[in-house]
């Protein structure tokens, strides 16, 4: 199947820093793909590059092709809002505080489809129904709604122009656990009904395990490991993925000391970025950047000999 989204060798530099250093990933139509990693791994910038929303001063190279359109080379406004939309982390700040929810839907719908106010309101009501909210929410201001309701509104807004790709960036991180669960279930149901692809950007490995078909684990701006979500997260092969999973407190594991990862992230230009923190690192790891082989960028996948 041809790819919905194809990112090839994406690099993003901001001044002398290169937070994204050659990320390649793809999303097939209707697929839910996780982009997971810790702070500073480059996951959010990768998402923003797909939207053509990199911060001022950031330079990107590589290729980002979305449904046949070149995002990096062309005008991102051709795809943003129509083919690709974003659900942000904090719904409390993503909405205009002085406009009703209905007004914000009208703005988006009229800008993209040129429809009448009346048609926009009807469509907005329909979208709210899809996210299990009553029509009266259209007359509410953002501060009158809970975080979970606002996140439902944001998802509805993201779906308003029937995009083929939705980027969800830490979409549940600011929510309570039970509400986060409802939002994930909602996203999964809407994805099945509408068939859009999802790029699920998260630091939460457990959530990625629950909703993603495939995942990419990012470390220091590179893809450390990729594969089917259950394979990567149940049988990790990259030492970083293994260390990250071992550091996670779990309900189904015996209580005891958690494995922590020594040191801090380095963006070494030569060799594997994880080598300094890796229990299995050999000389070759510090000398040569490991090529991705069979989904794992490691000289000794699955442990040192």
């Amino acid at each position, binding site marked *: 199947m041809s790819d919905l989204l194809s990112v090839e060798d994406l690099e993003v530099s901001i001044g002398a820093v290169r937070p994204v250093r050659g990320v390649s990933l793809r999303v097939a139509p209707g697929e839910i793909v996780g982009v997971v990693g*810790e*702070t500073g791994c480059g996951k959010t910038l990768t998402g923003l590059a797909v939207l053509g929303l990199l911060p001022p001063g950031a330079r990107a190279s590589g290729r980002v092709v979305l449904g046949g359109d070149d995002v990096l080379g062309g005008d991102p406004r051709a795809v943003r809002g129509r083919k690709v939309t974003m659900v942000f982390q904090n719904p409390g700040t993503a909405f205009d505080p002085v406009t009703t929810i209905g007004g914000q839907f009208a703005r988006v719908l009229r800008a993209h489809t040129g429809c009448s106010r009346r048609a926009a309101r009807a469509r907005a009501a329909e979208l709210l129904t899809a996210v299990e909210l009553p029509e009266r929410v259209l007359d509410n201001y953002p501060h009158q709604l809970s*975080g979970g309701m606002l996140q439902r509104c944001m998802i509805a807004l993201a779906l308003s122009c029937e995009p083929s790709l939705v980027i969800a960036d830490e979409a549940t991180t600011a929510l*309570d*656990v*039970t*509400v*986060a*669960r*409802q939002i*994930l*279930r909602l996203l*999964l149901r809407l994805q099945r009904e509408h068939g859009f692809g999802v790029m699920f950007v998260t*630091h*939460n*490995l*457990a*959530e990625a*395990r*629950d*909703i993603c078909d495939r995942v990419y684990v990012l470390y220091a701006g590179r893809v450390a490991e990729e594969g089917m979500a*259950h394979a990567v997260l149940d049988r990790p092969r990259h030492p970083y993925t293994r*260390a*990250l999973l071992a*550091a*996670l*407190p*779990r*309900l189904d594991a015996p*209580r005891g*000391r*958690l*494995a*922590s*990862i020594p040191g*801090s992230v380095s963006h070494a230009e030569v060799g594997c970025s994880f080598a300094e923190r890796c229990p299995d690192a050999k000389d070759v790891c510090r000398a040569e950047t490991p090529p991705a082989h069979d989904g794992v960028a490691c000289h000794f996948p699955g442990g040192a000999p």
Partner: protein
Amino acid sequence: MILSVTGLVKTFGSVRAVDGVDLSVAAGETYAVVGESGSGKTTLARCVLGLIRPTSGSVLVEGDDTATMRPGDLRLLRRRVQIVFQNPHASLNPRMTVERLVAEPMRLRTGSKGAALRDEVVADLDRLGLGPAHLSRYPHELSGGQLQRVALARALALRPRLLVLDEPTSALDVSVQAQILNLLADLRTHDGPAYLLISHDLAVVRHLADRVGVMYRGRLVEEAPADRLFAEPAHDYTRRLLDSVPGRGRESMETAHGVEP
């Protein structure tokens, strides 16, 4: 008992934020309060710290009632009850070095000055995994995990009997969270304080807590030893919380369980 809370009620206008809570924490024990936004867990913590006065009920710290304390006594109370907040970027003075941040409470307890005070600060920081190189740093020069260690050092410098931990690892990455959770477990074994852990993360709670109280709409709806609470949750809301913990795969998404709000 280090802490005994009896019939605690705190209202704000017509809202009963805490609506009749009883709990107690023994020396060296870790008691976790779990709940979601609006459950009243933060208001409970603020009453325990004596930051706000309960509407009714009592909060006893080693037998002393904080509700009837005068301001001077409350200041003394804070040497016995300390707190570590979720976001160390916001809770540490950005214009003070690590040394000053830790020396300030340390001097209150030991009365030391100069080189002796500095040695005490160095020793405490070392126990928390921060070397002397950090003494001259400012908060913005440190990572989130390092800052949370400084916040812990500051709280522990007073050798409190009770440490309130308000979502202490929620703002941290997984690998750093593991370091801080291990550290908290280690500190408990050295004649350390009892912990009142406030958290919404059930995996973290299970990892650290001896007993758990589940708060919902201002009330403790269930309280049990941690092992039992996670193995046999008795209250509907506890079961719903447990069902919401992610990580059991796609199949767990299909079986919606429990009551919807």
